[in-house]
């Protein structure tokens, strides 16, 4: 857990239980698929509280954890690590389309 607390800014993330989708805890204590709605903890104490809150709200998600993020001047946040960037925004290549090739 210490590793996750190393960044200055943190958000709480998890995978949704029913479908595995990546979700973030928002200010209202709801899980959302939108990174821009994630509640941001700005210091270590706030991060601990955020994680505790995420655990309390974990009935519909799996294994909440903290994600270190950076914030630009416009207030947009982005995860620091590549892993979390990929979790937040999806595959970094175009997957094969189900019907791209139709056998004739």
């Amino acid at each position, binding site marked *: 857990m210490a590793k996750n607390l190393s960044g200055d800014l943190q958000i709480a993330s998890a995978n949704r239980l029913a479908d*595995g989708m990546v979700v973030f805890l928002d200010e209202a204590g709801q899980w959302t698929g939108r990174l821009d709605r994630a509640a941001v903890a700005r210091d270590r104490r706030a991060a601990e509280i955020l994680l505790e809150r995420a655990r309390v709200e974990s009935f519909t998600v799996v294994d909440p954890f903290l994600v270190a993020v950076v914030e630009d001047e416009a207030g947009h946040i982005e995860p620091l690590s590549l892993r979390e960037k990929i979790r937040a925004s999806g595959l970094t290549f175009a997957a094969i389309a189900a019907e791209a*090739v139709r056998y004739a």
Partner: protein
Amino acid sequence: MPDTHFYRYDEYDRRLVAERVEQFRDQVRRRLAGELTEEQFKPLRLTNGLYLQLHAYMLRIAIPYGTLSSRQLRKLAEIARKYDRGYGHFTTRQNLQLHWIKLEQAPDAIAALAEVDMHSIQTSGNCVRNTTADHFAGAAADEIEDPRVWCEIVRQWSTLHPEFSFLPRKFKIAITGSPNDRAAVRVHDIGLRLWRNDEGEVGFEVIVGGGLGRTPMIGKTLREFLPRDELLAYLEATLRVYNRYGRRDNLFKARIKILVHEIGAEKMREEVEAEYRSMKDSALKLAPETVEAIARQFAPPPLRPGRTRVPEVEALKLGDPDFALWLKSNVAPHRVPGHAIVTASLKPAGAPPGDASAAQMEGVADIADMYSFSEIRVSHEQNLVLPHVAIEDLPAVYRALGRLGFAEANVGKITDIIACPGLDYCSLANARSIPVAQRISTRFAALARQHDIGDLKIKISGCINACGHHHVGHIGILGVDKNGVELYQISLGGDVDFGQTSLGTILGPAVPADRVVEAVEALVAVYLDARRAGERFVDTYRRLGIQPFKERVYAAV
């Protein structure tokens, strides 16, 4: 079911799988209702091959010894379309992974699998996993005996085996029936090689303690020649010794290869042989009628010897250079004259290696129905194989595969890359694999150049667990994370072909992601400058050693 020539479930198999589906359905229901915690549920879902990865649940479906009927492949396509995002990833263990499964639909997906005698049991956990085999089994011209008969016997013995359901770590078995090992048997926990001795008897060489991962090892031969009817007794003895002495205190030292390494092959042999002596004449001894009953299910299709030189094929060969290259790289000799084994390349330039859409799976199933007795194989090199194609049908099969994008004449060439899913999907990965493979295959897409370079196997893993088999790539590429940056460690000289199993040697410092293609170009350039007639890349490497490759790469990147 169409007239297939491999094992079909009996009532016992069907009941076992059906019961498992209903058990899992109830477990999922209880988890979604909050009656089970994740801690309680996780081992239950993993037992059914359901992992939770970066973005979603992933279902790993067992394809026993890589053999599929067209009906089964169509069902996989249907499941991919109905319960996933319409595509799947064929793996180095001859399985299929669906990466976007919803937990609430997972029981329906595995119920659908059961409809075609398939399941996802034992595709995770510390148990005996799907036994893999030569993907040319039952068709190869060089085959001594069909290994799938023995794979099926191992499957029946190991499925839900109570003594081996909680091994120190997962356990992988591979079997080949040919002198040209196409199943990488020396890098498995147990590798079995069928061969014929001077007396004309067929038996197994038993190789134990191979593996890749964090600590790659080449397996040691514990038995040069094991009579076939004693296979299960010897396997049981080996697993019993492993279960007793394998380390459970350290996840990274729990595989049987570490045990063999720590106590030595001689001691391991003594222990296994002692255990084996106590049970070799037990109920585990295989009765001839049992083996024959299973072997009958793998009876070869009724192929009639036919023409080996067909005018239409010869004409197309002259008129279409790409077809001529395809014949050279993607078509292998069949045991029956007038027939051939066709590999459908799942590695078109720039595509994710091993991925196939639902439509492509259905297309391959159609082609198999028309031209290959409804049979398909999955290779550990992440391609699909049509094992029984008449030579006169090769032009039609080539065109049909071409319409699917699966007729790239690159099997065994530089763009026939093995790649694990990597950091795009996998929660264990440190770096991406697929985009690296895509960049390499795009750069080297020109078929004439690929064939000029010749046989060259690139294998890419996104982490030290080595699902992409990088240790045995002629060029191995391992993704590592250094302070949040993806870097790629290159190794040279790995090999599993022609019985010359060797592990690669690390070239030097890892290179940045955007320099990997240039590094591969530099390696190829050294080879092209220095090769002698008939030398493959790996042969030139063995003759020259690593230094010239190292100098060129680090001058280039």
